[in-house]
């Protein structure tokens, strides 16, 4: 949908035509690229839905979703200006900011950490202390929480690098592994391991709540155009709300993206993911709009990063977090 031409109108549909503001068709839409930090899955359902339902377009934005995945690290893509927006984990973003990268958080979607440690009961692991001396695989990019966790519980573990899959854990190569509650944990269940055969450690229950997905851009991007500043976040959050309210339709949309990307995916898993993303993203306090970054959470993450020696200084939250929720509360 690059132009406001006939094909574009046909693609968008007559209904959309009626909804869209007149100006949207008379001016060029503001082109924006957006990179979800991983391959298509319900973790990014809100953005797919917002695109498909025309939520960006009605705000005068032509948002193009870029293909995420291991070959497109979002931080690099942002820095190299290969994408205008990207989703990042809060901890990664704080690291970048403290290194002087001028990126800003425009919305913090995830409120609770979905990051967990999964262990096999068959390895005798029932409590954090049981991890002592065990082989635990960690994602190289997400080690702060688990390491802090091990430190907190005073356990020594053998660290094994963790691949992008959970197969090493499934094949018995490690006793415990990292997992996202909304993704790998369900993959493990759907690989024939029963929940009662597993022990899970939710980091947020151990004082290590690292909210994850947030929407980021370089601060220069916000200054480009008012539509971008106001529209991207609002449309994204409208997409999320729509996805949570219409999960089946949202999963349909997600599945079209997974099929395009030839990602093995099934509705059951995507539905699990969407439901869990909802669990960790919806703010129970009605007065706080979705996408708000809690200063406490920011402080927790930044402090852990600092005490872990990852960062030297804690960035100023007011510079780091630029809420762009103008038209949606």
């Amino acid at each position, binding site marked *: 949908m690059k132009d406001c031409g006939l094909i574009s109108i046909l693609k968008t549909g007559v209904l959309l035509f009626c909804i869209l503001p007149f100006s949207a068709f008379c001016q060029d839409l503001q082109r924006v690229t957006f990179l979800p930090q991983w391959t298509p899955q319900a973790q990014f359902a809100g953005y797919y839905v917002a695109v498909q339902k025309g939520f960006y377009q009605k705000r005068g934005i032509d948002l193009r979703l870029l293909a995420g995945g291991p070959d497109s690290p979002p931080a690099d893509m942002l820095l190299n200006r290969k994408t205008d927006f990207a989703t990042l984990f809060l901890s990664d973003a704080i690291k970048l900011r403290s290194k002087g990268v001028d990126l800003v958080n425009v919305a913090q979607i995830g409120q609770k950490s979905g990051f967990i440690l999964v262990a096999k009961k068959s390895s005798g692991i029932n409590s954090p202390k049981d991890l002592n001396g065990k082989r635990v695989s960690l994602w190289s990019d997400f080690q702060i929480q688990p390491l802090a966790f091990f430190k907190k519980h005073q356990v020594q573990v053998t660290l094994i690098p963790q*691949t992008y899959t959970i*197969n*090493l854990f499934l094949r018995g190569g490690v006793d415990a592994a990292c997992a996202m509650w909304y993704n790998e944990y369900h993959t493990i269940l*759907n*690989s024939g391991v029963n929940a009662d055969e597993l022990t899970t450690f939710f980091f947020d229950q151990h004082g290590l709540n690292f909210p994850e997905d947030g929407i980021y851009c370089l601060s220069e991007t916000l200054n480009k155009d008012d539509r971008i500043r106001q529209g991207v976040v609002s449309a994204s959050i409208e997409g999320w709300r729509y996805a949570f309210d219409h999960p089946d339709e949202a999963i349909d949309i997600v599945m079209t993206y*997974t099929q395009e990307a030839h990602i093995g995916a099934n509705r059951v898993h995507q539905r699990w993911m969407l439901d869990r993303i909802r669990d960790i993203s919806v703010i129970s306090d009605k007065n706080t709009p979705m996408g708000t970054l809690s200063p406490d959470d920011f402080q927790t993450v930044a402090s852990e990063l600092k005490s872990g020696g990852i960062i030297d200084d804690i960035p100023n939250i007011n510079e780091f977090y630029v809420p762009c929720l103008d038209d949606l509360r």
Partner: protein
Amino acid sequence: MTSQILTNSMSPAWMISAKKSLAFKIASRTLLGTACIFFAVFFYNYTISRQTVLKTVEDNTRYLTLSTVHKIENTLLGIEKVPLYLAASLESQVYTRDILLKGIENVLNTNPEIYGAMVAFEPFSFDPQSRYYAPYICRKGDQLQSYDAETTFNYSFWDWYLIPRELGGPIWSEPYFDTEGGNIVMTTFSAPFYRKIHDDKVFSGVVTADLSLKWLKNIISEIKIYQSGYAFLISQTGVFVSHPNKDLIMNDSIFSIAEATGDMELRTIGRNMIHGKEGFVPLNHNLTGKISRMYYAPLQSTGWSVGVVVPEDELFAALKSLTLELVLIGAVGFTMLFLVIVFISGKMIRPISVLADKTAEIAKGNLDIDLPVSKSNDEIGDLTTSFENMRSALKEYIFDLKETTAIKERIESELKVAHTIQMSFLPKHFPPFPEKQEFDIYATLIPAREVGGDLYDFFLLDDKHLFFSIGDVSGKGVPAALFMAVTKTLMKGIATENLTPSDILERTNRELCVDNDTMMFCTVFCCILNFETGELAYSNAGHNPPLIISAEHKPEWLKVAPEVMLGVMEDIGYKTQLTTLEPGASLILYTDGVTEAMDHENKLYSNDRLIQMLEMEKSDCAQELVENIILSVREFVGAVAQSDDITVLALTFKGDSHPDCSSL
């Protein structure tokens, strides 16, 4: 009249329905029994057949599954050898880049089923200057394309590299989509190799061989069993690698389907499959859309599992049609059996129903009807013969009965006449002498049958003498009545004013004894009362002694000489006894029908009871006395039939007082 028509018109209908129901009952009960046996056999047969079919299917699917597994394993094992060989040689030799590339190229040239091959070294282990080195050659059409050189590509976090490294042995990777190579499902065999550094075995990298699963899909999809039986393949995590439904491949796992459908049994089956187990299991429609059976067996090398699925409706199609045929044959057979039984039983029952019709006619009284002649020598024949015998016996009996009844009726009417005549012998107008106020006399004779052997009589001999008597002839009925008539007539003829009671008895006796061939006899008590003075002359011929009731109502037996009854001895003499009745005294004459009347316990009324009764009696009216005695006897015997004639005669001597009894 209406009800009769109704009854007549109803009865044939009832007969017909009864006939039908009998044949129907025989047919239905026989059929019920037969059906029970049939269904038991049928069910047994079905169960056994089903088991046999299942066993055969299990054998077939096992054979098919295992042969498929064998075929796949052969190929996989063949492919495994190539990287294993290269890995082994990497452990013993040091390769230059060129030789290494040549070696990989050779792998592809000599193994057409291998899509690509790679040797990936641990960082800095191939070239201490270079972090990553992983030469890779794969097919692009007919050409081989080489991805050589040092790369920035960090492969150390990929499954095909990390897992064999951490597990310390070769692995087959989970199947994956190869986006580069035309979106085909691939799997990679990775064999680690090690080098000895200071006597330590140090991991140095992996040799991989990529395998397109196209051939495997072909093997699997070629499997056809029954009409729509098929095979599928799942990976170690339960993901569909091959399945007739292409949407499932690489997207769904057996567990995601189990979760989506909430089918925990399917999850258990899936767990067994990925845990390398083998089995034959029933499947519901969640996985296959139909109730099915599945045989599954593991691919040991990859940890994958092959399942061969056969829809149950196809397995049991032959059994089903056979069952249907059996049911049809059964239904036809049962219908025929029913008709045959109805026909046979109808034929057997027909003589009975004819017999029933005929006997109904007999029941109506038509005994001249001919019963059917039964030719059969069975129970029905016997029944017909018995009915015939019964009919003729009945006919004869009724004929006899008619005759007897006619005779009896005639005799009865004659007896009635005789009764009337006998009663007419006896004086029965009371008071008999209304002008005579000096005495009061009353008598009653109640015969046990139409005619009886008792007698009583009284008449005036002159204007101051009253003759009265009572008697009882031996036996009962007509002979006794005739003898009584003779005795009474004789006594009446003989009694004159000049004769004493004993004279009268003697003369009567003499007359009775003449030609008394029947040897009948008669007891008689006779008196002559001077009703002016109250003098009573009496004589007794073997009769019960009378009772005399004083004016003070005290009864006592009259003293009488016991003498022989009349008609026994011709020359016997009798005595006349005398007494005087005081005014107000009563004399009670009776026959033994009174004192020997029996109640239901065969107890006699008896003289004592008579005395007692009269002691209570305060009346001095003759009629009242007689009636009260009769009433007392009747009360005593109750419902017991009267066995003897009862005769009571009462005389009350009033003398000059002449109290009136007419008020009674």
